[in-house]
C-alpha cells in the first residue's frame, strides 16, 4: 500500500492550481502520477488562501481513485479531512469499476442540517431567550454521555434503520408533512440492517435524539436578511425579524461504527481488487462488489438513523417552544423548511458528455443542491429547486440557499455545507477560554449553553472562514442562490 503522504510536497499541489475563470481553479492530471481527472476547486482568491495545503494534496489523491468521472470537486468551505477533504464531491461510474469509499462520506454518515420556522418574532423571543435555551439544553441531550430519552428495543432500533424519519412520525415523534420536507423523505429505501454489526447497534441504541459534540448544535436564529422574498415566502420565511431554529447533527455512534467497520473491511479487501490508494482513509471497493454493496446498504441504515435523530430532536424542539410560549407548536407555525444531508453517497442520474449515466455520488461536507424539476425534490419544492441549509459558526450566522440548474452542470448538483474551519481545535482552545467566550457572546446578544467549555472554545467564530464569502462564491457562479441569511440568538452546544 502506498502511504503517500502530505509531507512530500505539501505546497506543491496548491502551486499547481490554475485559475480557469472567476472563482474556479483546476489542478491538471499532470500534477501527480495516477490522477485520472483534474481537481477542480470553487473558491475566491481569499478562500483559496484560507484553505490548508493538505486540501490540495487530498483532492488530487481523490482524483486517482478508480472510475472517477470528470473532476474531483472541492467546495469553497473546504478544509483538510481524513482521506477526502471536507468539502469534497466526487462521482464514480459503477460501469467503469467506479468505487465507493467510506472516507468520501465521513464517519458521521448523514451528518446534516435541519431548519424550522416559527411565526414568532425577535421581539417575542428575546425576553424569554434564556428560559428557552435552558429548556432546550435540558430537554435535548448533548455532549459526551448525552443519552437519548427514548428507550428502544433492538427490534425498534432495527426499524429506525429501515424506516428513518418515517418510524418517528409513525411513533408520534413528528408530523406527516415533515417527511416530504426531508431529503429522501427521511427514509433511504436500500437500507439493510443485516449489513450492520451488533457493535454499531450497541453504540447507537441509546442515542436517538441526541446532538453529540464537536461542531454540532441547536440554534435559535433570526432571519436577518431576505435576498429573495418570493422564494423565502414559499419556504416559510416572510419577515426579517422571524425566529427560526437550526439543528446540526448526524448519525451518532451508530453511524461512526458502521464507517469504522467498513473501513477495516475495505482495507483488507483492496488488494483483491487490485486497488492501491495514497492514504488508508481512501480505502474503497468497487461499487458493484459484494463489499461495496454491503457498505452502501449499511450506510443507508446509518443515514436513516441520522434522519430519525434529527426528526426526534425536531419534535423535542416543538415541545419546548410550545411549553415556553404556552401555545401548540402548530399554532407557532413550527414547520420544517427542509432537512439536508451533507455526508452521504447516493446513486444519481447525471448528464456526462450529453448522455444520462448513473453515478455513485460522494458528498463529504457538501450538500446536494439540485435545480428545479428533479424527481428527488419533494413536490412542494420541485418547481423552485432544492432548499439548501448552510450552517455557519455559532457567532456568524447561517444561510438558506436554493439549488439551480447551473449546479447540475458544474458540480453534479452540489454546493458547500458551512463555513469550514481555518484553525485547528488545539489552536482555538489556546486563543480563548470557553467561559470567557460564553460571556462575550452573551454581551453581543447570543446566549449559549454547553456541556463542554473547551468544546465551546474550539468552535469560536474566528476558527472558521467567513461564511458570506463561501456563499457568495456559489451564488456568483449561479450554483446555489442566496435566499435568507440567519443570525444566532441562542445556542445549545454539545
Amino acid at each position, binding site marked *: 500500500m502506498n502511504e503517500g503522504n502530505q509531507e512530500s510536497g505539501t505546497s506543491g499541489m496548491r502551486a499547481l492550481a490554475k485559475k480557469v475563470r472567476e472563482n474556479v481553479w483546476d489542478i491538471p492530471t499532470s500534477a501527480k502520477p495516477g490522477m485520472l481527472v483534474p481537481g477542480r476547486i470553487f473558491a475566491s482568491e481569499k478562500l483559496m488562501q484560507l484553505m490548508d495545503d493538505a486540501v490540495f494534496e487530498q483532492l488530487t489523491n481523490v482524483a486517482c481513485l478508480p472510475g472517477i468521472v470528470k473532476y474531483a470537486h472541492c467546495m469553497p468551505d473546504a478544509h483538510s479531512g481524513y482521506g477526502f477533504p471536507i468539502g469534497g464531491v466526487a462521482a464514480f461510474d459503477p460501469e467503469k469499476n467506479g468505487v465507493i469509499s467510506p472516507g468520501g462520506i465521513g464517519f458521521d454518515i448523514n451528518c446534516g442540517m435541519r431548519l424550522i420556522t416559527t411565526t414568532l418574532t425577535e421581539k417575542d423571543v428575546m425576553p424569554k431567550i434564556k428560559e428557552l435555551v435552558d429548556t432546550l439544553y435540558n430537554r435535548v441531550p448533548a455532549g459526551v454521555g448525552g443519552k437519548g430519552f427514548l428507550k428502544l428495543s433492538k427490534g425498534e432500533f432495527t426499524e429506525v434503520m429501515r424506516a428513518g424519519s418515517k418510524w418517528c412520525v409513525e411513533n408520534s415523534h413528528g408530523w406527516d408533512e415533515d417527511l416530504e420536507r426531508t431529503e429522501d423523505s427521511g427514509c433511504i429505501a436500500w437500507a439493510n440492517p443485516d449489513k450492520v454489526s451488533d457493535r454499531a447497534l450497541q453504540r447507537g441504541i441509546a442515542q436517538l435524539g441526541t446532538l*453529540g459534540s464537536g461542531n454540532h448544535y441547536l440554534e435559535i436564529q433570526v432571519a436577518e436578511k431576505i435576498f429573495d422574498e418570493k422564494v423565502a415566502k414559499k419556504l416559510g420565511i416572510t419577515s426579517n425579524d422571524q425566529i427560526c431554529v437550526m439543528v446540526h447533527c448526524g448519525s451518532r455512534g451508530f453511524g*461512526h461504527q458502521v464507517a469504522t467497520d467498513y473501513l477495516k473491511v475495505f482495507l483488507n479487501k483492496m488488494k483483491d481488487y487490485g486497488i492501491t490508494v495514497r492514504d488508508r482513509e481512501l480505502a474503497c471497493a468497487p461499487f458493484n462488489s459484494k463489499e461495496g454493496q454491503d457498505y452502501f446498504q449499511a450506510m443507508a441504515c446509518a443515514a436513516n438513523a441520522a434522519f430519525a435523530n434529527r426528526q426526534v430532536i425536531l419534535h423535542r424542539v416543538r415541545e419546548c417552544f410550545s411549553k415556553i410560549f404556552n401555545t401548540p407548536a402548530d399554532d407557532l407555525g413550527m414547520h420544517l423548511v427542509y432537512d439536508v444531508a451533507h455526508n452521504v453517497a447516493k446513486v444519481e442520474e447525471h448528464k456526462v458528455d450529453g448522455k444520462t449515466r448513473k453515478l455513485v455520488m460522494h458528498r463529504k461536507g457538501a450538500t446536494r443542491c439540485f435545480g428545479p424539476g428533479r424527481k428527488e425534490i419533494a413536490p412542494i419544492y420541485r418547481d423552485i429547486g432544492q432548499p439548501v441549509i448552510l450552517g455557519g459558526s455559532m457567532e456568524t450566522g447561517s444561510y438558506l440557499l436554493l439549488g439551480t440548474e447551473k449546479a447540475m452542470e458544474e458540480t453534479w448538483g452540489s454546493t458547500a455545507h458551512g463555513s469550514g474551519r481555518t484553525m485547528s481545535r488545539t489552536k482555538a482552545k489556546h486563543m480563548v477560554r470557553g467561559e470567557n467566550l460564553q460571556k462575550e457572546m452573551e454581551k453581543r446578544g447570543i446566549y449559549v449553553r454547553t456541556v463542554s467549555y473547551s468544546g465551546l472554545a474550539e468552535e469560536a467564530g474566528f476558527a472558521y472562514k467567513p461564511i458570506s464569502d463561501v456563499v457568495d462564491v456559489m451564488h456568483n457562479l449561479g450554483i446555489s442562490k442566496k435566499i435568507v441569511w440567519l443570525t444566532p440568538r441562542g445556542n445549545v452546544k454539545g
Partner: protein
Amino acid sequence: MPKYRFLEGIVTADLAFEATGKDLNDLFTNAALAVLESQARLETIEPKVTKKVVLEHADIEELLFDFLNEIIFFKDAEQLIFKTVKVAITKDGKYKLTAQFKGEKIDQKKHKLGNDLKAVTMHQFKVEETTKGWRCQVVIDI
C-alpha cells in the same frame, strides 16, 4: 519526555496526537491516556468500574487502532469514561493484548467533559519503533 502531545498542522477539524513509550505496553497506555484525556479531564473521574479488553492481531497498527476504538465503544455503548489503564502485550506469532480500564459512568455535572469522539481514523496513522522505544501518530474524528 511527555507521554503524549496533541499536534497542530495535521488536521483542521479533528484531533491529532502523538504518543511515545519505552515499550509497546507503555506506548499503548500513553495513547489510551491521550484519547481518555480528550473525552474528559481525568482528575474528575473516579475508578469505580473495571472493564477488561482482550484483543489480538498480527499487525501492530491494527492492534492499536482496535484498542483505541474500544474506548470510544465503551463511551457510547455503556456511557463509561476511564481514568486509568493497564496494558499487557505479548507476541507469540500474533500480538495479544490484555487491558484493564478503570473509570465510571458519565455524569455531565461531575465530569469536566471534552469532545464526544466519533472514531479513530486511519489518516496518517503510524506505529513505529524508534531509538528510544516506540512512537505512534493518531487522528481522531471529532
